[in-house]
């Protein structure tokens, strides 16, 4: 018996439709569970109070502050390094063996899983450089981890700037650096910001690389050499050690909502960047 190809065609169409909505359904369910279960426990006190009794009572303020410190400092270090690398790769060289090697390095860094960043940060920053479990060790590890994302997205953004803008700038006798800083970068900024926001999202949700470098002290870190914990680490410890399901759901809500907002902002910027030159 031969099945009518038109019938198969219809069937596949319906099947793929269902499949796509099933997959989006998973996302909706995940977010819905976190929101409904976490909502009753999140209030002003939960966000601004200090935790007591390992996190059973009180809020999560130190972990929110710890997350912000870690992410801001990592971005501060990774952005100039990453954007600088992207400028070098796109504006200052032609494709050569040298750029191929650098690209290979960036690709390889992007493929390394976060637990190996944790392992490296632990042995290099925490043990060999004697930083101990500290904000500084966490920041340096996360900086290396997010660098490939920033380099790649910045490179794409800079490449998308039309050639004509550069030619006009040169014809007005601007130097290369003047062209880059005054013409190319301003046009590429939405794309670069997208990469930065995506990196922020990744760093906020990171656990494996943070827990072995920044540690998991419940105190608010007041110097670079203090240990501290991020929201993701706090959530992990609450959930894994069964300290408090209520506080775990509350922390998950704050964590997931902040990551979703950051990523949505990133996509908004990306669309702005795309619509600019197409």
């Amino acid at each position: 018996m031969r099945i009518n190809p038109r019938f198969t065609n219809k069937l596949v169409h319906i099947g793929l439709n269902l499949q796509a909505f099933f997959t989006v359904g998973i996302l909706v369910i995940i977010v819905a569970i976190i929101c409904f279960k976490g909502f009753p426990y999140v209030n002003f006190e939960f966000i601004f109070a200090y935790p007591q009794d390992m996190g059973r009572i009180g809020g999560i303020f130190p972990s929110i502050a710890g997350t912000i410190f870690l992410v801001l400092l990592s971005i501060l270090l990774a952005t100039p390094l990453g954007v600088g690398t992207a400028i070098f790769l796109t504006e200052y060289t032609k494709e050569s063996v040298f750029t191929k090697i650098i690209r290979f390095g960036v690709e390889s860094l992007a493929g390394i899983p976060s637990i190996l960043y944790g392992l490296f940060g632990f042995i290099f920053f925490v043990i060999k450089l004697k930083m101990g479990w500290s904000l500084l060790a966490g920041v340096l590890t996360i900086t290396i981890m997010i660098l490939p994302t920033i380099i790649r997205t910045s490179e794409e953004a800079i490449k998308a700037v039309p050639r004509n803008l550069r030619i006009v700038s040169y014809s007005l006798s601007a130097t290369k650096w003047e062209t880059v800083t005054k013409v190319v970068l301003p046009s590429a900024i939405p794309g670069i910001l997208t990469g930065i926001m995506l990196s922020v999202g990744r760093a906020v949700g990171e656990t494996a690389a943070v827990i072995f470098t920044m540690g998991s002290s419940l105190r608010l870190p007041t110097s670079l050499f203090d240990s501290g914990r991020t929201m993701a680490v706090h959530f992990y410890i609450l959930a894994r050690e069964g300290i408090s399901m209520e506080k775990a759901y509350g922390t998950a809500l704050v964590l997931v909502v902040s990551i979703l907002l950051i990523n949505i902002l990133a996509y908004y910027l990306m669309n702005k960047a795309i619509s600019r030159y197409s």
Partner: protein
Amino acid sequence: MTNNPIRKERFVKWVLVVFALSSLLFLFLIFMFIFFEGLPLFHKVGLKNIILGFKWAPTKGFFGIFPMIVSSFLVTFGALVIGAPMGLSCAIYLSEYSGKKMKMFLKPALELLAGIPSVVYGFLGVVYIVPIVRDHIGGSGFSLLATSIILGIMILPTIISISFDSIMSVPKTYREGSLAMGATKWQTIYKVILPAARSGILASFILGMGRAIGETMAVIMIAGNALKIPSSILDPLRTLTGNIALELAYATGDHRLGLFSTGVVLLVIIMILNYIANFGIKRRT
């Protein structure tokens, strides 16, 4: 110095070269320190006793990680069995069937899946998937099956976005040619577009594998972490990543070196997977 534009240009260029080299330096440091700590044990205990050894009792001098290597590949394979068909069909739907408005909504929504942290996946796995497996299928619930389901969902964004790109890069003329010959839409996709996008689709599967094999926090929460090769999909297991994450905080001496040896094996596997995937992506473009 700043008054002389030529000097300034030269200065800027050198600074940028140093920035660009920093990525290579970091990669070098990561390899050097993980290998530096991990390799001595291979020399002391023997490569065979570590990679093919069955017993992991680091405080008693046994560093066998064979069951973990097998387990890592099992969860990766399980994730692929679940994630690859789902991801590929989503990519086909997005590229060939969905309207422009639908695409504008679906693609970012699916990519947001990638932003949800792995601890949250692990937690939801423990609270929802593990009890379902325990009550309806059997075993303790902490199992290869539960881990594969969660990892399968986690690798979806990787598979979808890379397969989507490679399907979109198939020239329009291929589609038009096939449709003009009287083929249906599905015949065109199945016989023309998918074969043309083959290498990119394979690359997306391999990158998905890389993500699954490197995943840590979700896995240690759901896998049960038992030190043996699972004999059914309902058995608990411990992966290479789980081994490192579970014991690094308190390990000392040779025990810690054993965890770095585990890291060396993981790093080598990941580098091989990435190399193969990059090869596939480059062939496409």
